């Protein structure tokens, strides 16, 4: 990580497709054009029915920003979103259920999509590179289920949806973690974040400030700087 530069370098964004379970998912791979890669990052976005696609401002901002700091990044569309393959569903009933419960069946299975993205990234530039798993909103809940055998890794959790999804699995995570929580986040109570965070066993850091509710609009560059700073400190 110490190889990561202080200043941005030119980047390339390439559209890719990769397998995840029985589906092929659409992704965008961003990387430094003519510079060595210091690590890889996989971005797990919000819930697919709440803006979770690769156009999301946080997902795109981090994907492009990290690439410019020589961290190859992969953002992707979950199954059934955009041009990613997905299950056949009765969309009207699916959405009606989401309206009533804020959940859809099998939504936690989407960790397999993150796993597919991680496997793709570990096979692409160099399997030995450290891996940053970055979740935003619902995406945070998927990360602890991802298998990373033998990889040096770190977790970045941006606006985790505590109280809406199960975060108990983080207790068994031992890779270092950075948690970024917005003080005015509609989706989670500040006290709940603090209580959950204090029970985590891994090397950890919690950042809390007002960050445009749950949405980080206008804070994308700050997120890049913060994430790069954390990874640099962990991967020295």
């Amino acid at each position, binding site marked *: 990580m110490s190889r990561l530069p202080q200043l941005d370098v030119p980047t390339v964004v390439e559209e890719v497709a990769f397998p995840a379970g029985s589906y092929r998912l659409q992704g965008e791979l961003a990387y430094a054009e003519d510079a060595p890669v210091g690590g890889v990052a996989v971005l797990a976005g919000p819930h697919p*029915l*709440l803006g979770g696609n690769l156009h999301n401002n946080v997902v795109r901002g981090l994907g492009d920003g990290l690439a410019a700091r020589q961290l190859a990044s992969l953002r992707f569309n979950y199954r059934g979103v955009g041009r990613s393959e997905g299950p056949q*569903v009765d969309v009207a009933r699916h959405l009606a259920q989401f309206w009533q419960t804020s959940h859809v069946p099998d939504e936690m299975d989407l960790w397999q999509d993150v796993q597919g993205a991680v496997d793709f990234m570990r096979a692409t530039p160099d399997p030995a590179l450290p891996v940053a798993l970055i979740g935003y909103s619902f995406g945070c809940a998927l990360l602890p289920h991802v298998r990373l055998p033998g990889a040096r890794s770190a977790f970045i959790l941006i606006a985790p949806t505590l109280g809406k999804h199960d975060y108990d699995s983080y207790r068994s995570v031992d890779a270092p973690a950075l948690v970024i929580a917005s003080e005015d986040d509609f989706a989670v109570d500040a006290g709940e974040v603090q209580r959950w965070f204090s029970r985590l066993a891994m090397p950890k850091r919690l950042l809390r400030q007002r960050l445009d509710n749950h*949405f980080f609009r206008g804070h994308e560059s700050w997120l890049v700087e913060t994430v790069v700073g954390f990874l640099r400190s962990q991967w020295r």
Partner: protein
Amino acid sequence: MRAGRGILLTGATGFLGRYLLRHLLSAGHGVGVLVRDSGKQAAAERVAELVASLSEGVGRELPCPVMLSGELGQRGLGLTLVDRQWLGRNCSAVVHAAGDLSFQARTDGEPWRTNVQGTNELLRVCGQLGLSEFHHISTAYVCGRRRGTIGEEDRECGQGFHNPYEESKFEAERAVRLTGGLRATVYRPAVIVGDSRTGYTSSYAGLYRFLELAARLAEAEAGWPADRRRDAGGLLPARRLPLRLPLTGDERSNLVPVDWVARAVVSLVGRPSWHGHTFHLVSQAPVALRVILETAAQELRIEGVEFAGRNAGEDTGRLGQLFQDGLRQYWPYLADQPVFLCQNTRAALPDLAPPAMDGPMLRRLIRFAIADGWGRARSRAADDSACQARQLLCATYIEQVFPRQARQSPLARLAGLNLMVALDIRGPGGGQWSCRWINGELSCISRGLEPGAELTYHTDTATFEAVVQGRQSPQQAFFEERIAIRGNVETALKLAVLFDQFLREISFPPADRTEAMGVTTSPA
């Protein structure tokens, strides 16, 4: 743009060109575009409008390409010295998508002037300026009158041609290959049709001409147009069109959606190990005419069209003859399709197979064309002032169109909506409305902001228009801060998903709903 790494794109404002521009910019390429000043609008304005439209389509702001004012047919492309120097310093590759689609020789020299002379001039300028990577958009139909299987590396086979278009594209390909010092990659798409996801097209040649003529003949026979079906909720009966076609229905048409063609070209531009080859950008499973007819008959509300067999000859009746005469130039593309091999394309793009040209896809294409008046609606709409349209839009949509469509949709009933929502739309033609649902039924819409509304959406008329017309999803508009929410944000975002799906259902048939599990931005 980084020195020497940029791409010059010709034909950027054309049908395929605008998709190429979008994908090149999205992929992070620095792009210069060669655009001619038209009589009505300066090139810079046209490109700026185009990029704004493309940005809206991809849901983020795309970088503006560098605009080079010029014209293929002019000496030195009509470029200024400054632009030539810029090109030499900043670009190393060309994507040549400009072309003339005339099937008949015209008095102004087309299609030869653009397709052959223009390409030759471009090649000359490339040689002078050191642009050595040339991506040439040709056509699969440079095979001319050949039948059977056509290989991607097949070139001159004494084939003969159906029309000057095919021959001029063939000559252009030959010129590209004969130019020394170039690494030429040739792309040969089959018949390019509209966007696979939205049906959008700005080019109504080929397939569309057949469908439009069928629609007009049916209209003349029955006395009412196809698009009245929408207003009447699909209750009007099918129109009788006793048309006998001298075909079996098993003939296949090789149609490829424009967005896939552009994506394939841009992907290959980014894969240098494949440069120097020729790629057939064709459907791997061309659609049978029978499928096209069945789908078109449903969408155009016609019945009575039948395949009379290849030996029907002139025994196709008055309408049959009229139909054949009106579309004589396109007939070869229906009757005797060759089989295009595509080993290069499959090997180079294993992750990008062409989408299936099936019933739902054909429906999207046809529905867009009908709504667009086969290309006439857009030109009519351009004559109206945007302000006038918006003034009509908000009140008409909210008070008349939306209630009628909402009654036909099961979404609110399935969800059991029980809430009141307010809309505060600023700008000319805007206003304030409140909508109440009780037990899934839209019970009332009133003017003004009701104090009991649980949610209020604040936006402007341009954004409202973009959302209602399907050009931007409501959620995406919120993330771009074009919609603000007062009230429970999560509920508002969930309602936005329902509304987005509601708009999709109005635009697309039920069979397509499964693809919309998530929220995607609307393509250009």
